[in-house]
């Protein structure tokens, strides 16, 4: 269905001619986000610069019955920011930090602000935005809110949900609502929380009030090396059981280490079965004692080496290695698929064994990283997209891993979201009643079903309807 001309004309009136793309080349580049398995091009991309413009675009889409989705940097890994036909509301130009209150430790930002840029700007005031996904150099705050993003340091600091105080939201019908405010203590139910992690299906966030936390005064970073991956995961459980809460606790297996070292040389031991990257956000006497306990526990579980980063440079290098694991996969495989399962952390060793076993059954190689402290695993399933069933096998492998996570009492996604790829599995995790209530909430806030359709919830027939152009129910107020 070609987008009707009157709608694009309307868009041009709202944002100006140069800020509407309908050319083949431009649309082609929006056909996928960080997940390339799903490809679907929009019919139009609009670049608004204000809440008012977003609201006007959404109203126009409603009137025309055309589906739409908001997009930031397109680094998402669950196909959440693509749309098959319809309109992408591209928020990359809404990238201003509107207000920063160092005294009250909050900032009001537009959704297109890049995650690490925000912390770069607040660090002179001794503050930072805690969620630090591996894509933080590129991903935007709007996307962090939509996916409830995590990262290595959310083990202690909490995920994005814990750092969003308020939001200005363009609702599915184009009305602008404000939820929450700059303070932690708020009146009434926290509507803002409903929106965090809703994957852009309930509204489009155009301003976010984020909590800022003090930058750690000192940091202790440790690297524990294991011959056997099980020793590493057992150590994670032991450390947390010893009532030590590191600020980060990351698991990296051999294949990942080798891929990173082949490319970056950050100092990971290439012959290790697995390593743990452990960080405390202090470097005082108490942390010294904790580091000793951690070392003892690691050695008890088979660590063959244990080192402390001696300088900030060394520390940065280790983290650079960790953040570039996924990227380094491009060096050893033409494609890979990132699984995002979660298990109770006491089951880490079990799930890891299951992952290697399942990959073996599917005859696929798998490289493992994990936010181990959170029980959030990221098996990177390597495959060749040029073989006829390459992608299908990778997806089947991932599905089996997720089923194993659920069996162990875990969940489908730690931070990447459900998006397109896992929505049918939601029925395995939630009961019919659970899903019915989620659907009621969504249908209540987005009655036409035009806002980011086909994502998050198993939809069945409804999704197809939207794709063919929704019809406007009588009496709908626009």
């Amino acid at each position, binding site marked *: 269905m070609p987008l009707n001309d009157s709608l694009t004309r309307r868009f041009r009136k709202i944002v100006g001619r140069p800020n509407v*793309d309908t*050319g*083949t*080349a*431009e649309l*082609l*580049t*929006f*056909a*996928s*986000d*960080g*997940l*390339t398995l799903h490809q679907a091009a929009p019919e139009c*991309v609009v*670049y608004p610069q204000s809440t008012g413009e977003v609201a006007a675009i959404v109203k126009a889409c409603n009137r025309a019955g055309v589906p739409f989705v908001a997009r930031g*940097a*397109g*680094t998402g890994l669950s196909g959440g920011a693509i749309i098959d036909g319809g309109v992408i509301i*591209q928020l*990359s*130009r809404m*990238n201003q930090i509107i207000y920063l209150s160092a005294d009250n430790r909050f900032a009001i930002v537009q959704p*297109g602000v*890049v995650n690490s*840029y925000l912390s770069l700007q607040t660090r002179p005031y001794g503050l930072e935005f805690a969620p630090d996904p591996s*894509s933080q*150099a*590129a*991903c935007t705050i709007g996307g962090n809110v939509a996916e409830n993003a995590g990262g290595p340091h959310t083990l202690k600091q909490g995920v994005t949900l814990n750092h969003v105080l308020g939001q200005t939201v363009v609702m599915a019908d184009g009305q602008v609502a404000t939820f929450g405010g700059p303070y932690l203590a708020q009146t009434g139910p926290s509507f803002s929380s409903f929106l965090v992690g809703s994957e852009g299906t309930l509204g489009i966030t155009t301003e976010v009030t984020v909590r800022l936390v003090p930058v750690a005064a000192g940091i202790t970073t440790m690297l524990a090396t294991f011959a056997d991956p099980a020793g590493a995961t057992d150590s994670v459980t032991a450390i947390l059981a010893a009532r030590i809460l590191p600020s980060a606790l990351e698991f990296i297996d051999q294949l990942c280490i080798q891929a990173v070292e082949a*490319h970056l040389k950050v100092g990971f031991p290439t012959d290790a079965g697995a390593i743990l990257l452990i960080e405390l956000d202090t470097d005082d006497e108490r942390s010294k004692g904790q580091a000793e306990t951690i070392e003892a526990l690691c050695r008890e579980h088979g660590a063959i080496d244990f080192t402390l980063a001696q300088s900030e440079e060394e520390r940065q290098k280790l983290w650079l290695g960790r*953040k*570039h694991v*996924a*990227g*380094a*996969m*491009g*060096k050893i495989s*033409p*494609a*890979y698929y990132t699984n995002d399962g979660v298990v109770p952390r006491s089951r880490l060793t079990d799930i890891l064994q299951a992952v290697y076993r399942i990959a073996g059954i599917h005859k696929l190689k798998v490289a493992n990283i994990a936010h181990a402290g959170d029980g959030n695993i990221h098996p990177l399933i390597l495959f060749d997209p040029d073989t006829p069933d390459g992608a299908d096998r990778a997806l089947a492998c991932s599905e089996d891993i997720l089923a194993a996570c659920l069996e162990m009492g875990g969940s489908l996604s730690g931070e990447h979201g459900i998006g397109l790829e896992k929505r049918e599995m939601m029925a395995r995790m939630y009961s019919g009643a659970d899903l019915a209530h989620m659907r009621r909430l969504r249908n209540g806030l987005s009655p036409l079903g035009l806002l980011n359709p086909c994502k998050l919830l198993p939809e069945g027939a409804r999704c197809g309807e939207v794709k063919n152009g929704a019809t406007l129910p009588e009496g709908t107020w626009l």
Partner: protein
Amino acid sequence: MTAHLMFQPDQARQLQTCIHCGLCLPSCPTYMVTGREADSPRGRLVLMNSIDRHEWSDRSGHFVHIDRCLGCLACETACPSGVPYGSLLEQVRSFQRREVTPLKLGSRTILRWTTAPVLRRRLTRLLAWLQKLRLDRLAVRLRLLPRPLRMQLAGLPKLPAKSFTAAAEQRFEPRHPEGIHRETVALFAGCVMDSWFANVHAATVRVMQWNGYTVIVPAGQHCCGALHAHAGIDTATGAKGERVGDMSAFSQTGAAALIVNSAGCGAHLKHAAADGLPQVVDAVEWLVDNGLLPPVHKLPEKVTYDAPCHLFHAQKIVQQPEALLRAACENLIPLPESEVCCGSAGLYSLTEPDLSRQILGRKLAMLEKVDAEIVATANPGCQMQIQGGLKLDGQRRQVRHTLEILDAAYSLDETYRRVFAE
């Protein structure tokens, strides 16, 4: 098996190393300005792939975004999977010139008048004459020319009476203060650098001599062809009689290194130079890596450094310029976004004037925040672009080559002045 329209099989495989993670987006100057996926490295790789797989018969829309690429290679620095973006881009551009759209007349003309020896001599004489009569200032002030040309004119250095190279080979003996003799190196003079920046070459030779090196400047040098390669023009067939890319002047020198002081030429020569040539080394890289003789006195002026993309991103020369400037300057002030392109990028400021101006605007805004009297850089294009921008912007700061700054610091010492006054 998919048929490839322009890439060799190994290049097509290199294209596949892009995992679509998007980490390159915030580093791309055009994405910073337009926020458009198609104007990002990731988007451009998608378009390249689409062209290569012959997905569309009308590709003009694809090439608009390829044309907008500066070729600054900041994306290569940001890329975690090592996509060789620069070489893919050159391949696409060369395909584009052969099969789609030839280089525009204006660009071809400028290329010829700056790189072909005879034409360049004429152009230089014309420009020097304009400068003498102060007509260049008039043209800038009265806005007699289109803005991109005015900016180039404003950014032009005071043109020297003659180019640096001579009809015969020149040889400069070492002048180390303690009489130390080190290796013999050959200086690559280039085209624009040779005619318009002869003083930079003179400074380069002096600091090399002072550090104990013998410098040979062979006669019969030619343009390295970097600008042509970036524009997609095959120098072997396209430049009749110009001998672009002809480096034969250096094959018999027996020098330990082929010293290049222009970032763009250095980057190009490092990966394109033929066998039998001395190893290509950037001048600053050579001086610092082999142990720089620290100046006795430091320059008192406040200096900031803007990294040329083809030094920082293409040659990964990151630490050395800063180390050199720290040794030469009392007040070295860090410049935010120093590693982001200034929008010069060869012919870019003339072919994409609007984008170039916006990218330069961001650079000028950063410079305005920094309290520095001198901006150091190491590439003629950057130097003219930033200097022109500063002048048109009303900022009174000088842009200088890193080695001119080192030369100035050495000159604070009387011995140095005396030795080279002879």
